[in-house]
């Protein structure tokens, strides 16, 4: 019975101070199988992967590879034993060539023959059908190809188990498909692949089996074809899905009557071409378009995050000058940045300090928020937004992605903004939290706050926005309201069919 599994993990336990991150989790992987590992943020997916790759040492349980028990001491050790990982962020060196990246750190001696390496690299690339040349600089390849090179590197190291941790989150559809072809190819060669992702569609497109975790415990292992998508979601979030469907039914969005809050004419920044934009009080609108279409750059210009180079801005009809973030904040604008780690959280500071940060800045340096006051604020928002944290003094960096995002939301909500800009607030976070954030947006709008919402998932924007501004190649190419707010119309406008 044991023999048919490539990898078995039995009763894995991992404890962190105050938290039981994995509580007796089982996981099995067969030869030539693509196995999706699913769960909300904080479910224990990353912890399980990190135990398997030797980043963490488990506190209990057993790992067997091809039937033999083994202990994994470090990531290098895992790699040696045939377990390779490709992470979401490319961890290779963009300023080296593809060949160098494939072989880096694996040379047997100091002297390596460049030519023979390049030849070998080309063989591997063509075998796997990766559209890159060995002599090309890695940085000059698209993200998808870089991702594939990382996989090629792993595969060439004789890996039996390949872990793909959110490999698709920065890829477009075409690139995703290419990656899937590669995964299927590896599968046919007998490699066992563990696929971690948030995109449900992708799970169904490529995986054979699904293991679901929740709160550090195993929910179950299922054959993909036997588990309908809706059930998968309910297993992940552990509640029935009526809420989800009820949300999408609150379609009537009434805004037209309200007065205009913010208005920009010919606004431009070092990153954004001039554009016109306006939002009414209590309106939820959105910028949509492909990655790189300029949607993020536009909202950054509104907030003064990049150097503003031109245009006039009016708030409540009065002309104002917003040239840096603090100006925008003083005019009641909040901005949740796209890159949570780089532009959002102050990782080593506590949840409490992260929550009060923006309000403190607005109060100014000489009016510090007292300790007791800040504790009260933190407690309030931890409760309101249901932030899962050990305490308000926990460093925010140790929270799961979704909860970090909630902390940043709390930070802006605490400033009681009139206008909140949310750039990809739901990226890389779990279904349950996504839903909570969408609900929150609609609730804020009801209370009269204007919200600009950006998301890569068009469906999500259709659910929340009453107006969509469509961008292509850094220009606004269309504006959709009312009847036109549907997937096909959005796609057409993005593609330039009827713009």
């Amino acid at each position, binding site marked *: 019975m044991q023999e048919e599994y490539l990898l078995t993990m039995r009763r894995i336990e991992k404890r962190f101070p105050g938290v039981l991150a994995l509580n007796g989790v089982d996981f099995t992987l067969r030869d030539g199988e693509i196995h999706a590992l699913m769960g909300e943020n904080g479910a224990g997916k990353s912890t399980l992967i990190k135990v398997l790759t030797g980043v963490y040492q488990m506190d209990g349980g057993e790992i067997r590879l091809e039937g033999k028990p083994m202990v994994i001491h470090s990531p290098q050790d895992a790699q040696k034993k045939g377990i390779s990982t490709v992470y979401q962020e490319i961890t290779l060196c963009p300023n080296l060539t593809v060949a160098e990246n494939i072989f880096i750190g694996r040379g047997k001696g100091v002297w390596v023959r460049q030519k023979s390496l390049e030849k070998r690299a080309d063989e591997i690339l063509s075998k796997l059908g990766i559209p890159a040349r060995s002599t090309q600089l890695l940085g000059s390849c698209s993200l998808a190809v870089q991702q594939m090179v990382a996989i090629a590197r792993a595969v060439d190291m004789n890996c039996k188990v390949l872990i793909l941790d959110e490999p698709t989150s920065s890829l477009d559809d075409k690139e995703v498909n290419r990656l899937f072809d590669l995964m299927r190819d590896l599968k046919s060669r007998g490699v066992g692949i563990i696929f971690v992702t948030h995109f449900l569609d992708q799970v169904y497109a490529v995986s054979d089996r699904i293991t679901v975790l929740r709160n550090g415990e195993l929910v179950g292992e299922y054959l993909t074809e036997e588990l309908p998508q809706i059930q998968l979601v309910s297993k992940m979030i552990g509640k029935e899905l009526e809420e989800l469907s009820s949300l999408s039914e609150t379609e009537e969005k009434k805004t037209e009557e309200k007065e205009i809050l913010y208005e920009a004419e010919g606004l431009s920044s070092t990153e954004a071409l001039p554009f016109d934009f306006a939002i009414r009080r209590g309106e939820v609108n959105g910028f949509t378009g492909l990655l790189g279409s300029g949607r993020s750059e536009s909202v950054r210009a509104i907030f003064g995050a990049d150097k503003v180079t031109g245009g006039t801005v009016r708030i409540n009809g009065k002309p104002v000058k917003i040239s840096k973030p603090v100006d925008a904040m003083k005019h009641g604008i909040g901005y949740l*940045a796209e890159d949570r780690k780089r532009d959002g959280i102050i*990782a080593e500071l506590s949840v409490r*300090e992260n929550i009060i940060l923006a309000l403190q800045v607005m109060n100014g340096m000489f009016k510090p928020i007292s300790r007791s006051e800040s504790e009260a604020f933190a407690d309030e928002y931890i409760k309101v937004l249901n932030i899962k944290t050990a305490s308000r003094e926990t460093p925010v960096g140790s929270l799961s992605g979704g909860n970090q995002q909630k902390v940043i939301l709390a930070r802006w909500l605490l400033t009681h903004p009139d206008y909140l800009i949310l750039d990809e607030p739901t990226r890389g976070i779990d279904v349950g939290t996504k839903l909570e954030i969408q609900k929150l947006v609609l609730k804020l709008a009801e209370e009269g706050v204007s919200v600009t919402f950006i998301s890569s998932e068009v469906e999500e924007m259709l659910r929340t926005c009453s107006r969509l501004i469509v961008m292509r190649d850094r220009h606004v190419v269309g504006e959709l309201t009312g009847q036109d707010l549907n997937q096909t119309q959005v796609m057409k406008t993005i593609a330039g069919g009827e713009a």
Partner: protein
Amino acid sequence: MKKFTKKFSFNGFGQLTIPLIAIALLVVFNLIRDPGFFSIGISHNSNGNAVLSGNLISIINGASELAILAMGMTLVTAACGGQDISVGAAAAIAGSVFVKVLKTSSSISGVTVILAFLCACVVAMIFGSFNGTLVAVFRIQPMIATLILYTCGRSIAYWINGGATPTVTSSIVNAIGSFIPGIPVPTPVIIVVVMGVLFWLLFHFTSLRLFTQSVGINGSAARLNGIDARFIKLLSFIILGVCVAVSGCIGVSRLGLINHETLLLDVEMDTILAVAIGGNNLGGGKFKLSGSVIGAYVIQMLTITLYAMKVSSTDVKAYKAIVIILLVVIGSPVIKEKFSRFLARLSDKRRKVSVKGAEE
């Protein structure tokens, strides 16, 4: 069950654990070596004042300049993720200005001393903002930026008094460097306390700590939350400038003269070390001033201990290095991690035993 686990799990090192252990070990070591090492007596100095004396007093007194510089350096480290290596040279400039002003006035009164000190402060703050501008506006690595002043600072100090090393004879200046009549505590120690209180007030009545830590940990996020990172970095250098002026003036007052070549020589490295021993991340971010101050006293106590053991002054540096290697390695993340894991396992065992006991 969850509560139970929490109560017994190990919460990791506090930032002050290592420097406090270091102090404690040094104290114990000295007590074993010489039980009377820390005895404090009252003696009469040349002016006939009753003053405290003893090794402990000279340690605390001797570390004053270092402690004050370490406070300022902590702030620069936290905001900029780098260190100012020009503090010794800048202190020589500040000391020279202090003496220059005193020398130009006909008679030295309390007012002239205050004036001279304020002039030294302003000059040190100007040099601080020079460093700060290079770091904050031109984004030069702090060590490179301050290398400029490190190189030329003592020459500038030389020019201020025309190459001479003038002496200052004034009872007021003497009191700053030693004792105020009627007060048995050395004046530099009192100044350290005053500086400590000023910093405490600064952090209590402004949000400088939060802003500095935010800038140090994640400059990009801090900027998008409206914090002016450049201003915070510049400010940290200006505040360090004040610390430089204060310690420069103390140094001058101790000797009653300015020697631009030797005043606080090599203090910058000890200052950085004090910050590091205090458990502060030299890469910036979270910080504790108290840690750096304790770090300064650790360094001074180590030096005095070695001297008391009759180690020759040329050998002291080597012995100091050995102890410091130990401190830094013990405080390193790798050892900390290993140690917390060890403690966690220990508390685990204890828990298992207690659970078993309860079952029986």
